């Protein structure tokens, strides 16, 4: 069933893997299961202060008066900072790059000086001896805000006399993609089908709200131990403090979930300012309510598809218009928009494509990174459109997809040739097989089946010139150490590195210790975002381990009187497979090597493909290193009288190239199934005039264990990816197809569609009624 016709790049075929590909117990498992793992919030220091952030409770206004005198006078309050107390510096909202480059004019004010642009924008920082005193001080701050007219949807923001949130015209990003000739393509079509799909604001809802502890050490370095996906914001923090980059150090800890919500700067800037001012350790722990208003959200998108198709189900042309609400500050909106534009055609071969995308500023909460990063919203639209087209043509939905799927060797809409395997079809077939027979309807409860396939990048945009470093060393007793700045946000990022080093150095995972997530002492590995950690840092560890292995093998060859190509390393031994007399333990090898001055460590850098930016007018050119393909399929039961949707079975099938740890991959697929189900059915942040009115888990409804069906994970391994051992990425891709699969299943059950997520019971009932009219 695999794609035999075209050959694709395949990594290291036919090697025997001893550690990689095995569902080993992760290095972080026992600590977490026994509660011994220390998260950032578990660290304290003698004499530390407790911080609080005062935030605006309206979305658009002018700060007329801010009086902190009573708060300052409260005994036990060490410090209250307002914009007046800060030098006129800004906070970066850009993606941290290894190159130090930054987009112009995208930074935001650190604290409100005059104009408030969104609900939750910080007005003042407090540090006090106890959390209760900090709370009390917060209540003592007096302020007056004059409400200003705001704009709360993208269409209004583009009107001629709209209030300007972001200069000059509220447009913060624009992309165009042009391929072939859509006019000709539509002329060749028998049918043209047009639909618009809408997605909502959603919340990352990680288990661990933002938290950190900062102190200034004896060298004047500001140290920040915190929960983050990105330790390399230290540079931006230094810029905001006005100190050299080497005077700020960020130490991570095990992270209780990120999903993109800990990709931007969160508590570290406030911590650094308060520690710098007070010269005392300061701890800041967001409450859940702080977290709801304190970080950027997933962009609501409207995505309009106009598709030309022939009667026999061949897509001849596609026009897509995309609009995203970027909220009050730029943050990563232009990049999210680009991801959506590039992903918009889906995993389909379409010769004539025209895509126009814009991100527009409003006074809603700013929007930024969120697992799936625009590509998830794109999939919500293109997979719904595929089903709508099939329905209009009266074609089988799966067969219609098969007639249009990209196949290995095909190019994307931006003209990038995909060098890895394209197994969208294979994944869909496996997922559908796993669902088996569709259960029968019972009375008013109708059963629906839906799939969604996808194409999603892993690794960062190629003109960011992404790099990652790792260090691997072998101790004189034969044990292995890995050092790398990578942050582990709960997916087993660190453990996977250990498994790669263990594989190449011939030891077990138990013999490896990993030090990670310290911007000063571990080699910088970049961000744990963009489904890049395993790909990039995995490759750096792979290279470092391979180079070290070569030296060990050469030395062992000398010691064992053999040729290097005869030597293998496994089970803590260096040996000649065919000659039992020639073997020695790695312990002896390493200690012998040490006494002979053998270099027992290696620092390696991995560089992603570097390209120039795509053409501004046509969008043509490579955008990403590579893509993952897969499918999610579900059966749902819909109570057509009440509109309640129950997901009966949920199957994710993904070609991830090579699973480093299949158990960790299953964790991603299961987590994606849950998060996508919430996106489809129940999660929504509701803003009224920019003010968040659903700021708690009693209104913001993530699925509970009682809402989740059995999830089946199917891992396909083409070994064709750019990652270590041919791995692709699964972190974001596992989420992307879930919501559209559920939306398609609901549409299948009720014979009509809800075009805007989330698909609430009320909307289902409405859609059924409208269809009956």
């Amino acid at each position, binding site marked *: 069933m695999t794609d035999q016709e075209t050959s694709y790049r395949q990594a290291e075929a036919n090697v025997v893997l001893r550690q990689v590909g095995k569902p080993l117990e992760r290095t972080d498992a026992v600590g977490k299961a026994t509660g011994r793992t220390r998260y950032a919030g578990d660290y304290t220091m003698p004499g530390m202060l407790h911080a609080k952030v005062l935030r605006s409770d309206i979305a658009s206004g002018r700060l007329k008066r801010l009086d902190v005198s009573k708060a300052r006078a409260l005994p036990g309050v060490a410090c209250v900072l307002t914009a007046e107390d800060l030098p006129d510096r800004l906070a970066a909202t850009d993606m941290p790059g290894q190159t130090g480059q930054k987009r112009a004019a995208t930074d935001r004010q650190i604290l409100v000086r005059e104009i408030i642009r969104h609900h939750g924008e910080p007005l003042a920082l407090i540090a006090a001896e106890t959390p*209760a005193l900090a709370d009390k001080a917060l209540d003592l701050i007096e302020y007056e805000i004059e409400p200003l007219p705001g704009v709360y949807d993208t269409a209004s923001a583009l009107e001629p006399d709209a209030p300007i949130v972001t200069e000059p015209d509220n447009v913060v990003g624009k992309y165009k993609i042009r391929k072939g000739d859509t006019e000709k393509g539509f002329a060749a079509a028998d049918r043209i089908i047009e639909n618009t799909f809408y997605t909502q604001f959603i919340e990352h809802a990680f288990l661990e709200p933002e938290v950190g502890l900062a102190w200034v050490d004896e060298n004047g370095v500001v140290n920040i131990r915190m929960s983050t996906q990105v330790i390399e914001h230290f540079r931006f923090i230094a810029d905001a403090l006005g100190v050299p980059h080497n005077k700020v150090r960020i130490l991570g800890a095990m992270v209780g979930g990120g999903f993109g919500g800990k990709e931007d700067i969160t508590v570290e800037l406030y911590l650094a300012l308060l520690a710098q001012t007070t010269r005392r350790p300061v701890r800041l722990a967001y409450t859940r309510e702080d977290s709801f208003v304190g970080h950027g959200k997933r962009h609501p998108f409207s995505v309009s598809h106009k598709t030309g198709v022939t009667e026999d189900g061949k897509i001849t042309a596609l026009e897509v218009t995309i609009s995203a609400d970027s909220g009050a500050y730029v943050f990563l909106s232009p990049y999210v928009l680009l991801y959506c534009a590039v992903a918009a055609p889906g995993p389909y071969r379409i010769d004539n494509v025209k895509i126009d995308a814009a991100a527009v500023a409003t006074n809603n909460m700013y929007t930024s990174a969120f697992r799936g990063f625009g590509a998830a919203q794109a999939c919500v639209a293109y997979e719904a459109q595929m089903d709508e087209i099939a329905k209009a043509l009266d074609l089988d939905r799966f067969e219609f997809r098969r007639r249009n799927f990209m196949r290995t060797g095909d190019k994307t809409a931006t003209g990038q040739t995909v060098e890895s395997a394209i197994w969208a079809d294979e994944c869909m077939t496996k997922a559908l097989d796993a669902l088996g027979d569709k259960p029968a309807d019972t009375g008013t409860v109708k059963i629906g089946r839906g799939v969604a396939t996808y194409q999603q990048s892993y690794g960062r945009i190629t003109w960011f010139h992404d790099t990652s470093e790792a260090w691997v060393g072998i101790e004189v007793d034969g044990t292995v150490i890995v050092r790398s700045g990578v942050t582990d946000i709960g997916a087993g990022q660190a453990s996977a590195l250990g498994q790669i080093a263990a594989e190449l150095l011939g030891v077990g995972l138990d013999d490896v210790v990993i030090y990670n997530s310290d911007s000063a002492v571990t080699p910088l590995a970049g961000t744990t975002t963009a489904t890049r950690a395993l790909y990039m840092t995995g490759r750096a560890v792979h290279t470092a381990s391979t180079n070290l292995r070569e030296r060990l093998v050469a030395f062992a060859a000398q010691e064992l009187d053999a040729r290097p190509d005869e030597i293998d390393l496994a089970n803590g031994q260096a040996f000649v497979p065919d000659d039992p007399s020639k073997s020695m333990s790695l312990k002896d090898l390493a200690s012998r090597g040490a006494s002979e001055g053998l270099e027992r460590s290696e620092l390696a850098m991995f560089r992603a493909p570097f390209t120039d930016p795509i053409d501004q007018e046509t969008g043509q050119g490579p955008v990403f290193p590579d893509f993952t393909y897969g499918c999610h399929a579900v059966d749902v039961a819909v109570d057509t009288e*009440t509109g309640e949707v129950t997901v009966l079975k949920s199957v994710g099938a993904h070609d991830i190239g090579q699973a480093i740890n299949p158990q960790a991959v299953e964790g991603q697929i299961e987590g994606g199934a849950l998060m996508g189900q919430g996106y489809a059915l129940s999660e929504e942040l509701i803003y009224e005039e920019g003010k968040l009115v659903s700021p708690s*888990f009693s209104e913001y409804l993530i699925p*509970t264990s009682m809402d989740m069906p059995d999830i089946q994970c199917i891992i396909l391994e083409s070994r064709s990816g750019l990652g270590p051992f041919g791995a692709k990425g699964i972190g974001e891709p596992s989420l992307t197809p879930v919501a559209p699969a559920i939306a398609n299943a609901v549409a299948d059950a009720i014979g009509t569609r809800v075009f805007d997520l989330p698909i609430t*019971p009320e909307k289902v009932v409405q859609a059924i009624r409208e269809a009956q009219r």
Partner: protein
Amino acid sequence: MLRDFELDMPADLQETLACLPGGTPLAGGTNLLVDLRARRESAERLVWLGNIDAFRDIKIEDGQAAIGGGTTVGDILRHPGMERAAPALVDCARVFGGQMVRNQATLAGNVCSGSPAADSVPPLLSLDAELCLASATQVRTIALDDFYTGFKKNRRSPDELVTGISWPVPGPNTANRFYKLARRKGDAITVVGVAVTVTRDGNTCTDARIALGAVAPTVFRAKEAEALIIGETLTEERVDEAAQKAKELSDPIDDLRASADYRRDMVQVLTRRLLNQAWQSLGEKEAGR
């Protein structure tokens, strides 16, 4: 942050009742502590009920079911006799909160919190439950149907404790059901809750209860709808009439969870559905005899 409060931990019922004037009973805390933290509640002295002897006892005898004032939702689920003594209450317990909340939340706390979305109230109303209220000076019983006076208002005086809830065990020709409609299956605030009781003798409905949750300032019985089916054969038309009446009697609000219109429609859908199910299940029982 949770504000500071005083906590009394009296040793028995008498001491508890002595503490109550000026104190607020703390049972599972799944409403009270949440409300204190959100500053919706300003109690300064809490009285813990955890030391009261036999406060979680459940007795089912002589056609009467009685549960102690400290009985949790989980206790209801685990008690083998409840399936028969209070079918709707068991339906409710299965979908109440999540596992952790069920182990902590008490029925008395649910009843006293007085939320129109309090899930145990429609089932208890459909079972003609009574509350036993005790203070240091008197003990009285009050029908649950007479308990609520308005949104989160009731006839309990601040020095009274709910020490028990009781109801007559439904007979074999009575069916009793509850359905909770919500935006997700666990830990969700109810959008519409409906409980019905139907007693069937041959082809006649001899008694009926219809109790509606989350569609008015308090949970209430749709008595005019009940009247439309008592003494009748529950044909499709009769049931439709009752469901229509229940819809008319409800007075819901628009909120983040659902619109008032949807809620009204769902009262009709669920009332119809539950009455039909109840009636038919009794029909099957009769046929099977």
